[in-house]
């Protein structure tokens, strides 16, 4: 039983590592079914890998958040992340801009906005304050239930 479990784990590791293969330039992502099949990513192993990923609960990770004042003197936030899942993740973000006292600035743009992150790929989105009074922000996310 132990041996079987060990073999299963080894196969799972090989499969997962194999699928994490990077292209020669990290800025370019070549998805499964576009790039050549390999041990970790082929017609047989792909569904297994996707299932394992779903069981493990892979999702979106935020890698970097940059904040700057743009040419219009407005606060601009650029969020960079990576979708670890083997499926496209659709989510929404809610941005609240804060003034110098930390109070929320009322705005019609305080709405849930959609973002789509392709499987096993980097994603980024940019949002900009609509008033120069914004000096800080607060962001929340949720699953986008309007999209399938």
């Amino acid at each position, binding site marked *: 039983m132990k041996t079987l479990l060990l073999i299963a784990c080894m196969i799972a590791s090989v499969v997962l590592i194999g699928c994490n293969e990077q292209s020669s330039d990290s800025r370019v992502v070549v998805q499964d079914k576009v790039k050549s099949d390999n041990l970790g990513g082929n017609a047989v192993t792909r569904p297994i890998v996707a299932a394992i990923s779903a069981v493990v609960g892979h999702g979106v990770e935020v890698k970097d958040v940059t904040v700057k004042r*743009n*040419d*219009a*003197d*407005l606060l*601009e936030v650029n969020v960079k992340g990576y979708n670890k899942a083997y499926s496209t993740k659709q989510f929404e973000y809610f941005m609240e801009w804060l003034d110098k006292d930390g109070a929320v600035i009322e*705005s*019609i*743009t*305080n*709405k*849930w*906005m*959609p973002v789509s992150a392709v499987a096993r790929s980097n994603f980024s989105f940019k*949002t*900009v304050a*609509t*008033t*120069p009074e914004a000096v800080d922000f607060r962001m929340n996310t*949720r*699953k986008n*239930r*309007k*999209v399938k």
Partner: protein
Amino acid sequence: MKTILSLILLSILFALTGCVQETRNIDMVNDDAKAVLGLDYRDFDQAATEMVRSMIGSGRLRKNDGSRYVMASGRVINDTMQRIDTDQLMAKIEEELLNSGQVVMTSAVGSGDAVDQLVHDNRDLRDNEEFDQSSVAAKGTLLAPDLSVSGKILQRNINYDKKTQQVEYYFQLKVTDMKSGLRFWQKETIIGKRGSKKSVAW
């Protein structure tokens, strides 16, 4: 027997009353309900937010000397199968443009509800002895707009398959310089939906 019958009737009555769909207010901030095939308030909010962020964030409406552009609301054409009050959409955008401090909207000229007729009626009071003439707007006090904002909402219906239809909504907005006629900014936001052909997209 009568008692049993009464009890059964009462139970049926309770059961039926319990099945009535309860009316609830929508949580307008965190509404995560399913999509509808027509345009709902969330679609307008999304389109308006994208437009406003792009327009203000582009910096094209920011004057270097710190003064503000005077902007007039032009026509927004509704070319969809739905009854849309385009002034409602523009009201959101105008509100945010005003709050940005980059532009000031004029009510003297424009399209639809953007014009406040009282601005002109007030000028008809000139030479009316019933009014203190120093409180009546003098000639040459109105400011002509520097910019206008206008647009269009389009709808395209496509047969996706036997059971499904695809409905595409295009929100287009542009800002034009009144003196030169040159376009300062423009954007198109697309909202696409797929749903049953039995659903009506209007």
